[in-house]
């Protein structure tokens, strides 16, 4: 069955992973692909599914260019080589998204993450935190691959354009979250970086002075990177456990936390007291 035997024979999976710009992918183990259970539902998403699967597994595949041993089929039913190559890549990508959330796949990706093969976070205060690939959706053909930084909890575009034609669905939305959960060391690394940053000192300065937040050019996005640090903030953080606290509660806490910034105290006191 297998077309191996030649000396310079390279398995399809290895070839695929060695392609330019495919260095985010890990090779999927043969057993994982051969288990039909892992492929549930993919046959409806990939054209020429069977042929594509055989291509990945290096089985003999009939194409329209050389249909020899299936005389009963007419040539129209068979894919041409370019179409088949595309289907195989799509199928591999979709299996890849499933493989990397299985135990062996996750481990393989974790060691790639450890070696910083996905690049580091461009953000200054993340201090070179390693990134992990993720997709914005699980459907192929929607968006290209993005990189998730667990430290700032945000997603970034890959720094090189060579990754701009890789589908985000080939990594999936689940992978980063699962990787963090499976390897608590990652969160520990993030925590060290977060604790190092003094969030009150960051932000733009003009001749050493901070710009007031009432100015249009003032700091308006501090919340995006904030972490609860003071006791009040931690209390507030606990109140966000399940839902966003209602605005009345918020006003009360508002008074507790930053009294000096509330310039019409009377008004708010009256409304919360009544």
């Amino acid at each position: 069955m297998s077309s191996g035997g030649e000396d310079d024979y390279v398995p399809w999976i290895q070839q695929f992973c060695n392609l330019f710009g495919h260095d985010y992918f890990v090779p999927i183990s043969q057993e994982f692909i051969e288990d039909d259970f892992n492929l549930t539902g993919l046959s409806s998403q990939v054209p020429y599914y069977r042929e594509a699967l055989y291509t990945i597994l290096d089985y003999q595949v009939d194409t329209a260019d050389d249909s020899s041993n299936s005389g009963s089929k007419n040539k129209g039913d068979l894919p041409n080589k370019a179409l088949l190559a595309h289907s195989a890549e799509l199928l591999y990508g979709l299996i890849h998204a499933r493989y990397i959330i299985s135990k062996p796949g996750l481990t393989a990706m974790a060691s790639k993450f450890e070696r910083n093969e996905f690049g580091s976070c461009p953000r200054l205060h993340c201090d070179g935190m390693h990134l992990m690939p993720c997709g914005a959706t699980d459907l192929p053909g929607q968006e290209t691959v993005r990189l998730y930084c667990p430290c700032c909890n945000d997603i970034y575009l890959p720094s090189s354009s060579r990754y701009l034609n890789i589908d985000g669905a080939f990594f999936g939305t689940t992978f980063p979250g699962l990787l963090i959960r499976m390897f608590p060391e990652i969160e520990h690394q993030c925590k060290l970086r977060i604790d190092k940053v003094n969030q009150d000192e960051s932000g733009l300065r003009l001749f050493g002075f901070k710009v007031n937040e009432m100015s249009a050019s003032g700091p308006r996005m501090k919340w995006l990177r904030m972490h609860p640090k003071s006791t009040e903030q931690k209390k507030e953080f606990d109140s966000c456990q399940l839902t966003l606290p209602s605005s009345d509660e918020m006003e009360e806490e508002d008074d507790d936390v930053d009294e000096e910034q509330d310039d019409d105290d009377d008004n708010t006191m009256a409304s919360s007291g009544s």
Partner: protein
Amino acid sequence: MANGVEEEFYTDSSSDFTEYWIDLFLGIKGNEYFCDIDEEYIRDRFNLTGLNQEVNKLPTLIDIITDVIDLESQDEEQRETLEHNARILYGLIHARYILTSRGLNKMFEKYRKGDFGYCPRVNCQLHPLLPVGLNDQPRLASIKLYCAKCEDFYNPKSGRHSVIDGAYFGTSFPAMFFQNFPQAIPVHDRRCYTPKVFGFKLHDYSQLNRWRELQRNKLEKRLLKNGVDIYNKPGGFVMDAPVAKTDDDKKREK
């Protein structure tokens, strides 16, 4: 060093008239972030106050930058240090020049063209960046890039930019830039990312995002209370239904 400059210059096809030191300097790979400084600005000694503490032989260096004396006429062994110091001096003058009105206009043009690159953050949707230093003293910190949309600092993508001294752009530049060009202040995006596992948001991350949303709501409230319009305005936030919300706020205030 000087030879290296010449090589760079000859590969640059667009200029067959550039004998000028500044043009040579700007043509060097990695110096794309710099703008050219008017000769009058360099010639005005008032603008260079205090810079003689940073570099030796200030008058000679000024003459080199403004092409009054040719580097070739100098001693062989001094040439390299002179060229090196001339570049430092140019950088330090640059930090001052880009805070002037003419310099800001030149930098605005570069900003508009995206010469400083674009924000890598997905939700910033390729917002152009601005160069910024973390320190005004030379030789302390390298250049960083500032995104006005997420108000955050990023490391330059390319290695040849990340070795530029941040003091050549200064800490005040982006703030000055937006004071001068308020129309360039972006509308901020409120979206943020929460990691999901099988479609379910991770609890602690979404709790953190909720807390951050709370901080933002408090900020919005403070701003509205002070009569600052933040609905889809520069410096404000992208919002869907501003009218409904303001009415709501008014009722609550009553």
